[in-house]
């Protein structure tokens, strides 16, 4: 309980809130410059999100992958790693789930679906672990290896889908077996046929897992110690290499699960595409806004999901290009990052203290490229 009250008492809870307001203001200014009515655009956004049961359901669907990749990036940040490769891990998770979902026949749902989930998650985890191994055993910077692995994942999954499970005459895979589906039929019906699936529940469990792993286990303590100061952790007798590997693997599993539910829960097939979905990069934004704390990441993903899904309404009703939402998101993160600026606004007379770095959010930077 004390923990909760502390979160709300901490003055820096105001920073994200003010950043959100400033971000929306920036969006309004950009719309005003472009000759649009910002007020009607924002109300269209809100109506789109909260308009009907269907829209609420679809908003939750939009939030789910953002939450998964946000957790993925946040977890790695906590261990001092910049996982820019959540994109590739997401794609590999999709591919693993697709192939298992299509190729295995005649299994009951209770067996098939869990196998597909586990395989997808593990493939994502292994993809993350590659970067972890390269980092811990060869000292390869995880930023560069993740960028490479993102591209390799994209082409590898395209190749696998094209040669193993292609739907004839289409640029996508066949449909997965019904026994692998994780769509929740009765819930979809209750939500006017929005695509509801098990993803959001598993994602919420992952939020709890994230917290317990990092703050309630010895391993998690070690991971965070490595994230704060790898040298000190090493001197204290922590196995830095295996910590790096573990955190990349877990990070990859989170991202992979995101991909799994996109296939098994939402689309039921995988598309051959020339570019990635971008969920991994959105995950970086979510993790940053959420301060790499599981609850923060949850709130961040809700905000981004609402804005992203609502942007379609802005486009339809107020004719505003959907990109405006990306601009708002970018501005929000910018203001969160340069919180010195907001502190000046809040308290102009107090001299701006040199930002005393705390936690792994900031650690992310001084990994820089070193």
């Amino acid at each position: 309980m004390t923990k909760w009250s502390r979160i709300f008492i901490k003055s820096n809870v105001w920073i994200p809130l003010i950043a959100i307001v400033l971000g929306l203001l920036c969006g309004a200014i950009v719309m005003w410059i472009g000759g649009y009515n910002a007020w009607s655009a924002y109300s269209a956004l809100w109506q789109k999100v909260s308009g009907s049961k269907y829209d609420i359901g679809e908003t939750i669907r939009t939030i789910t992958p953002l939450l998964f990749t946000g957790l993925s990036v946040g977890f790695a940040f906590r261990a001092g790693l910049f996982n820019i490769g959540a994109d590739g891990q997401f794609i590999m998770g999709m591919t693993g789930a697709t192939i298992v979902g299509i190729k295995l026949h005649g299994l009951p749902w209770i067996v098939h679906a869990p196998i597909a989930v586990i395989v997808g998650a593990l493939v994502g985890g292994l993809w993350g672990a590659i970067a972890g191994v390269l980092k811990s055993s060869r000292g390869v910077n995880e930023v560069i290896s993740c960028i490479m692995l993102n591209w390799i994942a994209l082409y590898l999954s395209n190749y696998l889908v094209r040669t193993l499970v292609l739907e004839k005459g289409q640029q996508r895979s066949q449909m997965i077996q019904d026994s692998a589906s994780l769509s929740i039929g009765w819930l979809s019906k209750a939500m006017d046929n929005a695509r509801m699936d098990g993803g959001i529940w598993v994602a919420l469990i992952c939020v709890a897992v994230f917290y317990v792993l990092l703050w309630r286990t010895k391993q998690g303590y070690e991971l965070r110690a490595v994230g704060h100061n790898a040298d000190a952790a090493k001197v204290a007798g922590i196995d830095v290499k295996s910590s790096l590997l573990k955190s990349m693997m877990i990070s990859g599993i989170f991202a992979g699960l995101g991909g799994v539910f996109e296939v098994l829960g939402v689309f039921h097939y995988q598309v051959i595409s020339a570019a990635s979905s971008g969920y991994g990069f959105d995950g970086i934004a979510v993790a940053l806004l959420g301060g790499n704390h599981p609850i923060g990441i949850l709130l961040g993903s809700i905000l981004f999901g609402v804005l992203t899904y609502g942007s379609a309404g802005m486009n339809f009703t107020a004719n505003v290009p959907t990109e405006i939402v990306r601009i708002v998101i970018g501005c929000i993160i910018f203001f969160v990052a340069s919180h010195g600026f907001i502190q000046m606004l809040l308290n102009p007379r107090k001299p701006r203290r040199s930002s005393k770095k705390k936690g792994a959010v900031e650690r992310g930077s001084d990994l820089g490229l070193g």
Partner: protein
Amino acid sequence: MDLISDLANLVNSTLVFTTALIFGAMGGLFSERSGVFNIGIEGMMTGGAFAAAIATWYAEKAGYGAASPWLGLAAGIVCGIMISLLLAVAAVTLKANQAVVGVVINILAAAITLYLVKIIFNGAGDTDVLSDVYSKWAIPWLSDIPFFGKALFNTYPTTYMAYVLVPLCSYLLFKTPFGLRLRSVGEHPGASDTVGINVTKYRYIGVLISGLLAGMGGAAITLTTTGNFSHSTVSGQGFIALAAMIFGRWSPWGVFGATFFFGMAQALRNFVKLYDWSKDIPMEFLYMFPYVLTLLVLAGAVGKSVKGPAAAGEPYDPSKR
């Protein structure tokens, strides 16, 4: 005979693809050498590509003819510098997290450019195809040399600039007082400050040069390879430039080697299509090849020596000196 002419073509188109990457990677190099981690290269290149397309388009309509791409290039440079100013203010003055600001720049650049394209071109997702873009210049005498003439001296003006850029950057960084100071600020800002080097000033310069070069790189893509601007014009080349910078171990010649390698990989995709045997290789493997090879090379090279500037990523705080 035929093979030699094919090879010359391959080198030629490799260098065209390399051009954008080398500008981007050199941009990243300057920023990082001054101690500012710049993951926003992608966004700066996007901004440069966009500004070049728009400026060239307006110049065309105003009847500037062959001068239009030069105005486009200038616009690309200005736009790149403006975007990098955002990074400089946030990361150096406000001491914000540099990785975060870089991500923000990528998000904002992609969104704002597309937003403006949609406004200017009535909702279309890409600009009109430009007619006055750069054409290849054959340099008299030099272009008559067998093989090398065709490979090296019959290409776009931006590529000629890239030829000059590498030795120039190498000289600037390693042979001038300016370069020494810039590098010292990236290695140990505290010590540099003690001997009277203005850390803030040099970091601003490093970041702004970075924006200038990345903007040029983006403009080079629009004005030579694609001929218009859409969301897919830059499509990850900024990240590849960043990878090339690390791959090239933060040195201008190393960066040149790495960008040439990635450029060749891009050129090879089109090149092998000319041969029948390429039909047996899945295209995906061909696309994957440079990335897999990079990973293998990095894994093979013993990691310890691959270290960037020591202070890259940390805001400088005099009170902690």
